[in-house]
């Protein structure tokens, strides 16, 4: 049976912060509204793995008290937000969607989350995701899948399915997710919300449970491009605790966001509109491109000839890095330890065997294989070489255009269980998103239409390295077409 949960529209960040400052609304009221939505709908949707009502309400009351003193409120004062459970927050559990971290209480807070807290955000809790962010449907969560608010028989996308669904269902004004191969943009597309992949190095990963370190990003979800841009402005910037974070200054993402697309050059790569693209998705994305043209953008064909090699390249590099990163889960310092083992090696083996789910094991095995003696050059080195070719495709294209437009995903949300038996088929759900992770560029998914069945469709807007402002400008225009 197809069930859509009741629609509710939460106020925007601007409306809330201004309302709290003027006293026409309050942070406590906003947090209550979100918790009411969670109480009503999250037994069905399952976007939250843990909630922190007491601390959230205390924090909201604190913001309201500050507002009455008349002092200027910070950017996100009183904004109810959720955090994907791959980012650690002192005082909240962190599971990464895995049994191996069940009960883990991290003793520190991720830098991106620290910045949200310092900007006045009210943290509601931690959001469900695929185990260690490995998946495209959220069905790999050890704590059960998230359901799509537009049709509860369908997946919300993954791996940040909880982060997307919580915004779509009006349980949070904005959320943080992570994106290693599409894990922010694809669920944003499936759930009809905005999801942003910042440039590699733009947002600190300190406190992010690592999956594939040369690909992982932290980024925001929100109902609108404006709100997502605001959240990115807060979390972006250099962090001494993350040597891969960039010292590139963070621009004011709002400065030119409403300038429109007139005079912008927008690239359209035919490689993203080929076989396998659902006709309804194609129609919605092409219609949006046509309207952007009518709004004054110059539409320029660009070629990204190595696109078809992106998924195999990605699954070699991502799994290789994952096999190294996940070596730390060994039952010694935190998380699950298998009982009654007699030797150290036996303890490692049994703890990992019992703590990891099937997809995580599959990726660790694949990554170990492609890095092992005799196969390293054939697979890992080869993939790194193709990664350069894919990246050079983008660098050439961005010499000619300000942003690139593609579908975010080849289809709208698919049904639960539809792809769980075939890992290859699931991996192809990321066919249009993995390229940006490999190349290090930025992008976003912005809603651009609905299928006849009422399922959201997203357009992907890709920008050059540190070109987020152009992405937001185009995205903001898409919302106004």
């Amino acid at each position, binding site marked *: 049976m197809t069930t859509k949960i009741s629609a509710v529209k939460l106020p925007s960040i601007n409306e809330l912060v201004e309302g709290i400052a003027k006293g026409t609304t309050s942070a406590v009221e906003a947090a209550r509204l979100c918790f009411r939505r969670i109480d009503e709908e999250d037994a069905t949707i399952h976007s939250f793995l843990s909630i922190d009502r007491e601390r959230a309400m205390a924090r909201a009351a604190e913001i309201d008290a500050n507002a009455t003193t008349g002092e200027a409120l910070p950017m996100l004062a009183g904004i109810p937000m959720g955090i994907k459970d791959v980012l650690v927050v002192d005082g909240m559990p962190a599971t990464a969607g895995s049994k191996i971290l069940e*009960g883990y209480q991290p003793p520190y807070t991720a830098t991106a989350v620290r910045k949200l807290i310092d900007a006045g955000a009210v943290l509601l809790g931690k959001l469900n995701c695929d185990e260690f962010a490995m998946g495209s449907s959220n069905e790999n969560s050890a704590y059960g899948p998230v359901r799509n608010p537009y049709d509860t028989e369908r997946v919300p996308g993954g791996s940040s399915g909880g982060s997307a669904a919580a915004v779509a269902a009006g349980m949070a004004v904005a959320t943080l997710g992570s994106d290693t191969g599409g894990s922010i943009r694809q669920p944003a597309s499936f759930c009809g919300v905005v999801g942003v992949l910042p440039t590699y190095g733009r947002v600190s990963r300190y406190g992010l449970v690592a999956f594939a370190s040369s690909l992982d990003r932290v980024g925001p979800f929100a109902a609108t491009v404006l709100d997502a841009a605001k959240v990115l402005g807060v979390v972006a910037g250099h962090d001494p605790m993350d040597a891969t*974070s960039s010292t590139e200054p963070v621009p004011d993402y709002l400065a030119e966001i409403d300038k429109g697309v007139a005079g912008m050059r927008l690239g359209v790569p035919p490689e993203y509109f080929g076989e396998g693209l659902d006709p309804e998705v194609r129609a919605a994305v092409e219609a949006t491109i046509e309207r952007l043209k009518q709004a004054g953008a110059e539409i320029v064909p660009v070629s990204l000839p190595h696109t078809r090699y992106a998924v*195999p390249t990605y699954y070699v590099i991502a799994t290789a890095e994952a096999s190294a990163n996940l070596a730390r889960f060994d039952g010694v*310092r935190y998380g699950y330890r298998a009982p009654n083992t007699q*030797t150290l090696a036996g*303890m490692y083996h049994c703890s990992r065997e019992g703590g990891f789910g099937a997809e995580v094991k599959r990726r660790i095995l694949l990554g170990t294989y492609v890095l092992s003696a005799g196969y390293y050059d*054939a697979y890992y080195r080869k993939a790194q070489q193709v990664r350069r070719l894919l990246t050079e495709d983008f660098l050439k294209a961005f010499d000619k255009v300000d942003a690139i437009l593609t579908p975010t995903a080849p289809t709208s949300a698919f049904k639960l269980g539809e792809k769980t038996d075939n890992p290859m088929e699931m991996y192809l759900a990321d066919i249009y998103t993995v390229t940006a992770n490999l190349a290090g560029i930025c992008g976003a998914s912005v809603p651009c239409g609905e299928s006849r069945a009422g399922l959201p469709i997203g357009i992907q807007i890709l920008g050059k*390295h540190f070109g987020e402002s152009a992405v937001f400008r185009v995205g903001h225009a898409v919302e106004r077409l």
Partner: protein
Amino acid sequence: MVENERVATEDVVRIAELANLELTAAETARMQRDLNSILDYVTQLNELETSSVEPMAQVSDVLGAGAENARPALREDRVMPCLDRQRVMASAPETDGTFFKVPKVIER
């Protein structure tokens, strides 16, 4: 890349050992099937001639001059407070309060 290479059962067992995983017989069979299917798909990378292409490990590899800020920035090497031991040990499966405890490593 070896065109006709198939991952055999003993390969899965060997990789699992390297990865500190202990698979059941059913898991081994399933993983063998999946790895072969994924690696078959990966072999299409062989269509590309890449002998003169430098491998790219990080995004900073391709951002040349003028992208100074995109490069990693190391922090000054000085002593700073670290995590509180008690709080770290609170999450350990087994500890004496000072150290992590593990099963016996050396057999006598």
